[in-house]
């Protein structure tokens, strides 16, 4: 009995010993698994737990005018962020109350942030006023996962400067955009038009990252490793533009209340001095948190203020096309400066094409001065029959018409300079003839150009046949101080003969001294050359054009002005152009009566019966 007990005790002892050792080994094995085998899983987990990446936004690059004056600046705005990983949805009502927005709104925004990233912080409220921002800051301890950022919005120091179509606006990146490019975060802004869009990569800079330690409640515990692995943001590059603020302000003032466009460039290098598309929109209202009402209103506006007429508009150039026609005629040897034709008051080819210019003998100079349609119908007839439409297309295109000129803001259009392929496509092969081509000679019919393109034509005639690259930005100054020059070289247009262009320039000078431009475009102080034009508008009153350059011998400025529904270019567009030239070249405006005339000029949008009749009468008229 006793020995049986002893054996049993020994066995029990053994069993318990084995149990303890086995269970102990299980625990040790588990520790080995967690701490050694799975170390690479848990170590990053603990770091993610206690580390938060904080995005530090770089200051966006500034924009200066041609005199080095700041025209686009930055201003601080306060933003509330959320890191979904540490955010407690139970706090949504508190956050909604502090922010003074509906609970649903907060829920929706947090969900969006969650969809974007569980661990990265996303902006949920931007442009919070300083007071609300301070209240949130005081309550941040009870709102784990909620943080803040101080960002900046665009500010425009020149109060009255609009320049909306040049500068453009910023918008938050869309979901598609941040999913496509890894470099954007939810809530980041990106340029959506104008220079802001074209130079996004330069202006934006490089995002910095701060690593901060946080505890389980999401409280900031200071920087990780004293900021050793932080990356500081790199400020965006500054843009030095060619914009002349004085000129731009005047152009905006003169175009106020009208629809149309002004493009002024330096004929020497293509630098855009001023560009206005009227009506403008208010970039100040689009600079911060999106003003929904305003955004909807400009989108619904029938005058379409977001549309950049200066580079996206497509209108027939009317008679402003005639100088280029004259140049082509001279170059192709169809006419000489002395070639005279007899103008009976109309041109007859299958039908009669009326001419507003008086009957008589016309050489090219007089034809330009008086804007004789007969002369240019005749000339177009000759070009089309002797050289073919495609030759005409080639020469017109080399001046920048019917093609993109790669100006450094988006949404430029090509316009239309028809060639035989175009007519075959649009009218059908064999279904078009000389009748369709004649109107091209006076800038009507299928020809469509933008104000920018016409400004280039003016500049390139003014500079005696040098192709220039239109541009806004002359210099990009990077964060580290290095600069990048963007000044493109001007290039001789090979077919242009200086002797011939002198004839054309003289003709354009005569337009201002003795022709349709003499009322409003002739200045005592500066020798202006130009050409008026009227674009037929089947929907209302005709659009007025004026292209111009000055001084005629060594032009410093070339312009195209388009006033929609302005009627004759000589009374609508020419005065605006001449005022801009006067301001730019003399620094002041002497002719206050012209200024007052422009300010009170009212384009007639709705067509009246009288206009209708007139329109029917002069189907192919140019002025």
């Amino acid at each position, binding site marked *: 009995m006793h020995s049986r*007990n002893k054996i*049993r*005790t020994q066995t*029990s*002892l053994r*069993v*318990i*010993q084995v149990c*303890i*050792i086995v*269970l*102990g080994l*299980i*625990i*040790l094995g*588990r*520790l*080995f698994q*967690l*701490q*050694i085998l*799975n*170390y690479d*899983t*848990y*170590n990053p*987990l*603990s*770091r993610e*737990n*206690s580390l938060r990446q904080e995005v530090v936004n770089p200051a966006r690059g500034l924009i200066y005018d041609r005199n080095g004056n700041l025209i686009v600046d930055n201003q601080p705005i306060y933003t509330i962020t959320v890191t979904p990983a540490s955010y*407690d949805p139970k706090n949504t009502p508190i956050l909604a109350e502090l922010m003074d927005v509906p609970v649903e709104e907060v829920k929706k925004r947090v969900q969006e942030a969650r969809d974007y990233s569980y661990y990265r912080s996303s902006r949920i409220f931007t442009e919070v006023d300083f007071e609300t921002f301070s209240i949130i800051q005081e309550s941040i301890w009870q709102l784990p996962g909620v943080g803040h950022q101080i960002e900046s919005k665009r500010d425009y120091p020149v109060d009255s400067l609009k320049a909306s179509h040049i500068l453009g606006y910023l918008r938050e990146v869309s979901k598609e955009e941040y999913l496509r490019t890894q470099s954007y975060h939810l809530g980041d802004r990106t340029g959506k038009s104008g220079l802001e869009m074209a130079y996004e990569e330069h202006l934006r800079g490089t995002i910095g990252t701060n690593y901060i*330690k*946080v*505890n*389980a*409640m999401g*409280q900031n*515990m200071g920087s990780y490793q004293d900021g050793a692995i932080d990356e500081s943001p790199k400020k965006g590059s500054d843009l030095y533009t060619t914009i002349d603020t004085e000129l731009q302000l005047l152009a905006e003032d003169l175009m106020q209340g009208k629809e149309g466009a002004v493009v002024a460039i330096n004929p020497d290098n293509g630098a855009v001095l001023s560009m206005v598309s009227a009506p403008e929109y208010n970039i100040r209202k689009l600079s911060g948190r999106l003003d929904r009402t305003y955004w909807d209103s400009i989108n619904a506006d029938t005058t379409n203020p977001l549309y950049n007429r200066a580079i996206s508009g497509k209108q027939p150039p009317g008679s402003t096309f005639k100088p280029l026609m004259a140049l082509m005629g001279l170059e192709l040897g169809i006419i000489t400066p002395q070639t005279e034709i007899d103008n009976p008051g109309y041109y007859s080819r299958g039908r009669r094409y009326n001419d507003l210019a008086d009957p008589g003998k016309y050489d090219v100079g007089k034809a330009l001065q008086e804007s004789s349609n007969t002369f240019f119908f005749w000339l177009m007839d000759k070009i089309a029959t002797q050289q073919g439409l495609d030759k005409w297309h080639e020469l017109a295109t080399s001046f920048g018409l019917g093609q993109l000129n790669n100006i450094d803001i988006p949404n430029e259009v090509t316009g239309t300079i028809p060639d035989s392929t175009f007519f075959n496509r649009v009218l059908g092969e064999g279904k078009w003839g000389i009748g369709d081509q004649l109107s091209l000679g006076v800038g009507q019919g299928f020809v469509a150009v933008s104000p920018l393109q016409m400004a280039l034509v003016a500049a390139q005639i003014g500079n005696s046949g040098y192709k220039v690259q239109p541009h806004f930005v002359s210099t990009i100054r990077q964060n580290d101080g290095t600069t990048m020059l963007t000044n493109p070289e001007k290039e001789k247009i090979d077919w242009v003969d200086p002797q011939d262009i002198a004839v054309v320039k003289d003709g354009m000078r005569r337009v201002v001294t003795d022709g349709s431009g003499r009322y409003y475009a002739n200045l005592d102080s500066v020798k202006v050359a130009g050409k008026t034009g009227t674009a037929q508008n089947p929907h209302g009153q005709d659009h007025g054009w004026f292209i111009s350059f000055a001084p005629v011998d060594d032009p410093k400025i070339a312009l195209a002005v388009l006033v929609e529904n302005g009627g004759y270019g000589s009374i609508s567009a020419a005065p605006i152009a001449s005022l801009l030239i006067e301001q730019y070249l003399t620094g002041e405006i002497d002719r206050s009566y012209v200024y007052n005339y422009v300010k009170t000029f009212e384009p007639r949008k709705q067509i009246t019966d009288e206009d209708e009749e007139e329109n029917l009468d002069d189907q192919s008229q140019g002025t």
Partner: protein
Amino acid sequence: MINLKELSWSLVTIWASLIAVGLVAIYSATQGPVAEFLPSYIQFNFYKQLISFGIAILLLIGLQFINPRTFQEGSYIFYGLGILLMILTLLIGKEVNGARSWLVLGPFNLQVSELMKIATILAVANYLTSGRNISAENLKSAIIAVSLIVLPAVLIILQNDMGTAIIFFALIPVVLFWSGLPYGISLFIISPAIIGYLTIISWYWGLIAAIIITLAIFMLQRRTWLTFTSFVTGVLLVIGIQVALNQVLQPHQRARIEAFTNPSFDPQGAGWNVIQAKTAIGSGGIYGKGFLEGTQTQLRFLPEQWTDFIFCVIGEEFGFVGAGFTVLLLLALTLRLLRMAAVHKHPFARLVIVGVLTVFFTHFFINVGSATGLLPVIGIPLPFISYGGSALITNTLMLGICLNLDFYKRQFSIYR
């Protein structure tokens, strides 16, 4: 007459080492950079533990001057007194963390359930060794012995302290087994725990375990009825737990039970503690992040890091080396006690020592198992390491009694 060489100095060393490890971990958990987020009464825990350590030293020394017969002779009195105090606690006790287990005695807060552990061990040991006819093989004695353990356990459940009750239930199979309960039946008694645990992880593992255990019982004890009962119990258990998990329990209750196998099921809720605990231990690596350098600890990602999750602090700041050392110390404690029981000649002393080591080991296994995600989170402290004056003093009391019984083992027989 007292020969100090007779004292088990190795156990005293292990005891002191464990408390030292605990003090280091408690210091880190309450006095490190984390202190910023802790209320001052918790920061004060380190100093309270130091004071408790002082009391424990005096207690350990004092206990060695007590006549070992006292423990046997007084066992029923201690037990009866303990039960009375437990009932009193239920009536007028103070509630802490949802458990009404504290009795306020003037300036002291006493957790009677802690003292009840040793009282129960002494009483059961006394009962099972009190007569020739009393043995676990005898059904009546076995039931009485089990009742002696279940009574305080039920009172503790009524106090809403599930963790401590589990310790009492763990005593039942060990004490009965040690007292001669047949191997097959012993295995049968612990089989629900094994099958239940595996079923929560996955039902077919539970089923496989039920089959293997049935086979083992059949091998150990060729009794048809026992084998049959074992199999039926096992299968019913697997089905019962499955039904409970899928049909009876609310999803959030199920999530809490299953959190240890699948914490990512509810990472912000029930799984949070498990994820943070495993992350703390796992990120410690081999050598740890260093004293006061643990991000999980110092940035307050761990719940109850000075008591139930203190092992995570050790694992994170001292790595596999530190955590492994702590585990080895605790294993050494239990194995050394087992050795002590083996060489003792007196059955009462042997059973007391086995009971005490069972309590220590169960605490250790459940605490570390919870922290490493092996077991569901059951809030019980790590012996000698976790903060807690009552626990430290009663654990020292239990160890001190074992040391006393060992110290006087040569003279013991004459007291019989």
